[in-house]
Each structure stands twice: as structure tokens, then as C-alpha cells.
């Protein structure tokens, strides 16, 4: 079994990574995705600069003393100001930070849960498996956005971390399915059998032998989960249930919509929407490109008959 060997010893992980990266980079989707993401990362990192330049550029509290309403782009406010005279450009930068924070942390948590539950279900089998997978079935049919809404109506205003946590709690089943089936096939492999015979505990087998083999797949799903989390947070903020202490792109759209500026202030309506759409697109493209790196089937030439 060729596959076995490759999976068991991975001494040159760095070389593997480089090889994977070169395939990834050859893929136009991967290239565009990473470039776009790089731009957004730059935006997120530079989001602290405008308030330092002048307090009036603070995305949340900074108000231009000379402007009390929404005004179009100028040298002073590159993308104009919102209804209270706050700078849209610095809000956009702050929004990038929030998007990364929400997207990456929610995705990380849901992937953690999904991988853990998937490995346990696949490895343990039996009752544990059935229980976890039925639970996954139930969660999967629930629309996450509406779940967060009903929780908001029960528990009141949710802060950004609670939102992240809820998204993570409701987004693991998809991953766990995939990881489970991977764990199921791994379980049959000789090296797991060997480890079991050698007296390794279940925990040790799961962490030492199964986890390294399912992690690449988990990371692939992480990119898709990032997009899901960003969209849900943005939608929630757009509907007016976001964390009032943060400036997210969804929040910006809510302001332009709710304050009745959408027909007059295109300079305000366009940027946040474009940003949400593009960051989603870039993660999505990266996911698809990674898919091709991890699934050599797609790279295969049409073989001779």
C-alpha cells in the first residue's frame, strides 16, 4: 500500500509543504485568493494607524468636528463620512480586523470541535458514534443565523465573543462528518492495528496516529468555515444584532441602510459590501485551490486505457 507509507512517515514535512505550496501557487484561484487575503490582512494590521494620526479618525468614537452628516469622499476623508461624521475609511480598516478575528477564531473553534467529535465518533464507533452523528444531523438542519437570533431574543444583546462561540457550536457537524469517515478508514490501516496491539491507549492512538492524518483535511474545511463565520457575523450585524461595541462591515451596512442613506451615499454603501464579498471570495478560492493540492485525483492526467 503506497498510501500507507506516505502517511506513516512524513519526515520531510517541510518539503511536502513546499511542494504543496508550489502546486497551490500554480492554481490561479489560489494565487488570486492569497493576494486578496494579503490585502485584507494589510488592512487589518493598519487599522490602528488612523486613530493615531488624528483622534477624529477613530472608527467608533472619532467625529470630525466640522462634519455632522454623511459627506462624500475628500482628501480629509478618503471614502467620506457616515451620518455622524465618522471616517468611513478607518471604519473599513477596523472592519477587516473584526472580520479576521471572527472568521479565524470561529473557524478554529468549530474545526477543533468537528475534528475532535469526528475522530471520536469514527474511532470509537458504536453508541458514541450514533449519538454524535445524530446530534450532528439535528444541528445541520438548523439555520445558524436564525439560531443566533433566537438566542439573542432569549439572552439579550450578545457580545462578539459570544457570537463567535455560538457560530462555532453550530458549525462543527459538516467537518465532523468528513473527519469521521477519514478516521473510519484509518482505523482499518495496519499501523493503527499495530499501535493497538503494542498497547497504546485510545487517547494516544487518536492523538498520535489519527490526528496527524486528518489535520490537512481539517485545515481545508477551516477555510470554508471562515467564510461561513464572517457571513453570519456580518448578517447578524446587518440585522442590528451585532456587538454594539465593534465596528464591523455588517454594522456599517446596517448604518447606511437604517439611516436612510443608501440612495444618497453610494460611497458609503459600496465599500463594506465589496469587502465582505471579496474576503469571502478569497477564502473560498483558497479552499478550492487547497482542495486540489490535497486531492491529487484532480491533478491526474487522463490515463491511457
Amino acid at each position, binding site marked *: 500500500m503506497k498510501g500507507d507509507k506516505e502517511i506513516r512517515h512524513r519526515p520531510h514535512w517541510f518539503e511536502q509543504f513546499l511542494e504543496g505550496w508550489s502546486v497551490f501557487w500554480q492554481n490561479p484561484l489560489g494565487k488570486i485568493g492569497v493576494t486578496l487575503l494579503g490585502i485584507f490582512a494589510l488592512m487589518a494590521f493598519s487599522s490602528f494607524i488612523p486613530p493615531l494620526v488624528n483622534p477624529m479618525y477613530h472608527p467608533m468614537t472619532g467625529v470630525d468636528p466640522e462634519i455632522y452628516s454623511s459627506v462624500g469622499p475628500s482628501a480629509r476623508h478618503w471614502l467620506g463620512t457616515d451620518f455622524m461624521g465618522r471616517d468611513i475609511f478607518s471604519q473599513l480598516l477596523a472592519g477587516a480586523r473584526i472580520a479576521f478575528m471572527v472568521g479565524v477564531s470561529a473557524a478554529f473553534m468549530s474545526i477543533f470541535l468537528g475534528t475532535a467529535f469526528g475522530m471520536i465518533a469514527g474511532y470509537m464507533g458504536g453508541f458514541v458514534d450514533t449519538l454524535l452523528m445524530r446530534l450532528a444531523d439535528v444541528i445541520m438542519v438548523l439555520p445558524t443565523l436564525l439560531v443566533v437570533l433566537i438566542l439573542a431574543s432569549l439572552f439579550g444583546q450578545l457580545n462578539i465573543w459570544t457570537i463567535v462561540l455560538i457560530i462555532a457550536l453550530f458549525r462543527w457537524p459538516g467537518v465532523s462528518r468528513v473527519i469521521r469517515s477519514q478516521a473510519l478508514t484509518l482505523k482499518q490501516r495496519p499501523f493503527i492495528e499495530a499501535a493497538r496491539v503494542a498497547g497504546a491507549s485510545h487517547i494516544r492512538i487518536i492523538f498520535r496516529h489519527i490526528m496527524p492524518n486528518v489535520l490537512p483535511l481539517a485545515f481545508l474545511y477551516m477555510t470554508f468555515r471562515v467564510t461561513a463565520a464572517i457571513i453570519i457575523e456580518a448578517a447578524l450585524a446587518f440585522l442590528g444584532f451585532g456587538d454594539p461595541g465593534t465596528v464591523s462591515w455588517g454594522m456599517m451596512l446596517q448604518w447606511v441602510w437604517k439611516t436612510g442613506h443608501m440612495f444618497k451615499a453610494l460611497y458609503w454603501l459600496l465599500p463594506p459590501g465589496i469587502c465582505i464579498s471579496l474576503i469571502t471570495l478569497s477564502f473560498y478560492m483558497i479552499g478550492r485551490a487547497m482542495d486540489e493540492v490535497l486531492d491529487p485525483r484532480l491533478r491526474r*492526467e*487522463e490515463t*491511457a*486505457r
Partner: protein
Amino acid sequence: MALLEVEDLSIGYRTRLGLHRAVEGVSFSLEEGKSLGFVGESGCGKTTVGMSLMGLLPRNGEVLRGRVLFEGRDILSISEEELRLLRWKKISMIFQAAMNALNPVKKVADQISEAILAHSSSVSKAEASRQVEGLFQLVGVPKERMRDYPHQYSGGMKQRAVIAMALACKPRLIIADEPTTALDVIVQAQILEETRLLQEQLGISIIFISHDISIVADVCHDIGIMYAGELVEYGSREEVFDSPAHPYTRALLSSFPTLTGNREMLKPIPGEPPNLVDPPKGCRFRERCQEASHECSLISPAWTELFPRHKVRCIRFERKKGPQ
């Protein structure tokens, strides 16, 4: 004139590593009502030959040289539409049923009558359905199973349906590609027997492709042995099966149990066929040949006629006969 005449056929596949020369200079002919078997390991080009006869090479496949004359017409140079009309009407195929040769979401009978309807506009649907009933009877599938889907059939029944499908348009030539592989031995023997009877009754020519020389010898009048894209031995069943000349043919014969005869020790042929992207000079079998000499790597062996029809490509026979 022979029904089918293939001259110097060479086929390549474009791959990332370069041109994979799957078939090299293959020539043979087939008379009306006769059957011919091609035998070789997987990857020897036998299926490629079969597919090229129907113009069904995969997208990266290309005929590099040669002619395929069917009823005197070169089917390599006719238009795609003419080719489409020729397929199944004149040349049909029996696929391996273990392959997904039948569409899983369509009723078996519909898949057969579809072929009939595609090739004769005068036939009504009811008439086509009656013909399918006749075909089912011919191959021995109960006609109650006509409305069933492929997954409801057993392996043997699927294979029979595939044979019925091949007969649907009363073709002059059938190409049977590993038609019994993956069936159990008893069903395999039944189907082979039925195939032979059908062929004799209906007078259809058959090209039979298999990796198993004993099966081919059971069914075919003539046998061609292929190795690494080349035909290495060709002759009647008796000549090739009973007095094999090429070392590869002999190795093949000792690596398969006969269907009926005594089971000898199976001797797998050691080694692997050469890489066809950059085929070696000289005889292609020499690296696995126990009788190879230094000369084998220098000269590509030419055909030597042992009997008027029994030909072999091996340098040892060239030497015996002396330079011509």
C-alpha cells in the same frame, strides 16, 4: 475482401511526460464470420486497438499512422457524423459488465431500444420494444426483467443484457473487451459458450480482447499476442495455443490455468513492461525474456513466417530462417 483490414496502426496518448506510444505498427485482417482474439497484459494496447476501430479513443489519444479499412472504407478518415452512424449499426461492442457499462438510472430495455431507435428512423417504439424482447430471449434473460434497472440484475444477467445490447442493430463486427472478467468461473464458461453459439448462428465477426489466453483460445479462430503496444505473434488458435513460438506467448501460457485442462503451477512473468513514452530499442520483451541475447537490444525483430499464417516477431526465428 476481408471485412476488416488494419494496416500499420500506431496510436499514441499525449501525457504530461510525453507521447505514450500505446500501439505501434499493428496489422491484421479479419474475414466475415471469423473471430480473432487479442491477448496481452494490461497496458499492452489491446483495448486501445479495439477502441480505435470504433473511433472511440479518449480525448488525448491520437492515431499516428496507419489505416483501418472496414468494408473497404478507411474509418479513420471519415467524418464524425459518418462514424456515429457506423457505430453499433456495423460495429458494436460488448463491454465488461463489471464495469459500469449500463447506465444506472435507465431501464435496461430502454438502453437497448435506444440503440435500435438511434439507427433506424423507420422503427417505431413498440417495434423496438418487441425487438428487445427477442434479444432478451436470444441471450436468455427472462423478458419480465425488461422493465428493471441494472442494479436489480445479477452479474451474469447484466453481462447477457450487454451482449443483447451489442446484437441490437445486427452488426457485422462485435468487439468484446474482457467480456467475462469479474464473473465467476461457471457463469464465465456459460457466457463464453453462448457467445460462440451466437456468433456461429448469426455469422457475426468478433474481435475478442482478453488478458487470459485460455479464454481467447476457447472462442477464437485466430489469436494475436500483444506486448508493449506491438503484435508479437499471430496465427490460428491451434498454432498459437498448441505450438507457441514467441517466448512471451509461452510465458503467458504458463501463467494461466486453462479453463478445462489441468492446472499447472502458475508462473507469473517476472518484471514489468517497458515505459512506452520512451520505448527501448530492439525487442521490447528482452528485459523479461529468459532467452534474450545481446543482439536483442540492437535489432527490432521483424516478422518471420513459420507457417503461411503463423507469424512471430523474435530474432531467434529470424536467425533460424536465415537472412531473407
